[in-house]
């Protein structure tokens, strides 16, 4: 599937495909032409993806073929035991987690889960967790703490679910509790935004020693659509809203609100999932290696100091 701004690339790739078919059918050597077209496509891709607007990055972050949490776990871990339920209400399918093994290292991986087909999307509630999802996440984090295993959270949500029952069961309290508890976790916590990082629903599992964003993701207090509807009473100004919110990985790093950016393959994570898994695995293992030797007290102090320094104000 191609996004609107990828149309020129799509056209060239269709041409390339035709060329291959023609060469095969007519048995003519077109390798020279193929090579030249391939070069042209690569150039165009490089140019397109190095000049993305903020809204285009938002589009990429929501690409329907993009890997989701369970895809990453499958691509990175050699073993995975999924754990369910918040021991209170029910198992929230929009939040998944369990113990995993990465290169012989045991870790706890927790993340929002979106679905790919209509039915699965509904099952996963479009990646919008209910309070029990946040409570399940906290339960798993406490388990990781008990067994002294690092925690990795993968963030990909259009927001915490704004439903009637979510309010009855204390959506605000559930997220708030996670924020406070995550600061005191004795084990290393590594948080990675792999798609959408919408507001409190994202932050609810994103308090960590290292918070990183994949190159084509967004993270902010509100989605561009909702921002547009509040400011201009319609969703039509989402591009403008995305620009105003400065919600890309590059923006967030510049504002010192995250610790790093994880490079994606050319064209986005979905264009070469294997390469993406390899890169993310490398980043995770490096972070664990860096954080593990520290004393838990130091890590907690560093985590608190880092978030305490965030803000822009003048004092006179």
């Amino acid at each position, binding site marked *: 599937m191609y996004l609107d701004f990828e149309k020129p690339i799509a056209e060239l790739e269709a041409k390339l495909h035709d060329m291959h078919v023609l060469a095969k059918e007519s048995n003519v050597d077109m390798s020279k032409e193929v090579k030249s077209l391939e070069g042209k496509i690569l150039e165009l891709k490089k140019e397109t993806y190095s000049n993305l607007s903020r809204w285009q990055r938002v589009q990429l972050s929501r690409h329907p073929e993009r890997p989701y949490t369970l895809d990453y776990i499958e691509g990175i871990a050699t073993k995975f035991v999924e754990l369910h339920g918040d021991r209170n209400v029910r198992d929230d399918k929009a939040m998944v987690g369990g113990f995993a093994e990465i290169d012989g290292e045991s870790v706890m991986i927790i993340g929002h889960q979106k679905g790919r087909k209509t039915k699965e999307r509904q099952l996963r509630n479009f990646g919008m967790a209910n309070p029990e999802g946040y409570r399940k996440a906290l339960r798993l984090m406490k388990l990781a703490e008990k067994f002294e295993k690092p925690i990795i959270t993968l963030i990909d949500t259009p927001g915490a679910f704004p439903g009637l029952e979510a309010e009855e069961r204390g959506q*605000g309290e559930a997220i708030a509790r996670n924020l406070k508890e995550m600061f005191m976790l004795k084990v290393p916590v590594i948080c990675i935004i792999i798609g959408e990082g919408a507001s409190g629903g994202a932050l609810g599992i994103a308090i960590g020693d290292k918070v990183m964003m994949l190159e084509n993701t967004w993270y902010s207090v509100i989605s561009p659509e909702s921002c547009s509807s509040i400011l201009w009473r319609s969703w039509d100004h989402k591009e403008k809203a995305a620009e105003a919110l400065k919600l890309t990985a590059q923006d967030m790093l510049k504002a010192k609100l995250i610790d790093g950016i994880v490079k994606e393959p050319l064209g986005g994570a979905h264009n070469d999932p294997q390469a993406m898994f390899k890169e993310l695995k490398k980043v995770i293992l490096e972070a664990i290696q860096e954080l593990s030797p520290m004393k838990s007290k130091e890590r907690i102090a560093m985590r608190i100091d880092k978030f305490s320094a965030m803000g822009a104000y003048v004092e006179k």
Partner: protein
Amino acid sequence: MSWYKRTEKGIVTPTEEKLEVPDGLWHQCPECKKIMQADEHSASSYVCPACGYHDRINSKEYFEILFDDNAFLELDENLSSGDPLKFIDSQPYPARVAASQKKTGLKDAVRSGYGKMNGSDVVIACMDFRFIGGSMGSVVGEKIARAIDYARKKKCPFIMISKSGGARMMEAGFSLMQMAKTSAKLALLDKEGLPYISILTDPTTGGVTASYAMLGDFNIAEPGSLIGFAGPRVIRETIGKDLPEGFQSAEFVLEHGFLDFIVDRREMKKKLADLLGMLK
């Protein structure tokens, strides 16, 4: 020929001087429409003596109600907003802040003070809804964080009075991280065994509910306050149905187990002091 001749062209009265009745003499309850003397209204903590309706009040009034003799040391009063994102909608963000400062005489949407309540030391932070909807940006987050640090330094209880529409959109990512910052400081306060009382007033929603407002050792609300995470309009659009009567009211939130109790503002000071007294 007209009966009267206007000697001056156009009569211009600045808005703040425009008064239908002399200011501060009379107050009409918006709920039961009873008219009372303003003195009577303020003496009953801005609660209607007839129907118990709690008028929305600001930090100035809450400080008057809670601090002994209204004596307190104001903390970090010189903090004001930056413009980290150069955010522009209908007007640039700094202009919006400046207009709100001019209108309200406040620097931002929260004030904090250190003083005595029934003879005991306490730090109180209180939000002002008049300032851009009581929204939480960097200044609100930083002032609350510092107020908590002050309570830790003085080893005294911290009381937070929330009244907010949530995070301030114009500071985007910065606003979001204030939820994290304030929660971090509350974790430290908690670890040091100091009491934290969160008072939720009308309205308390969004990122404020999803951080410090819900993290009290004691979560207490004023009667009838709107308290929730998502706003009623958003929920209505999500579920495609009308919301039940009383949904997201303080009484509803108490019923679902997220508040310790609801307190009449006229009893608030005594009840807080009684509670804190038992923890000593």
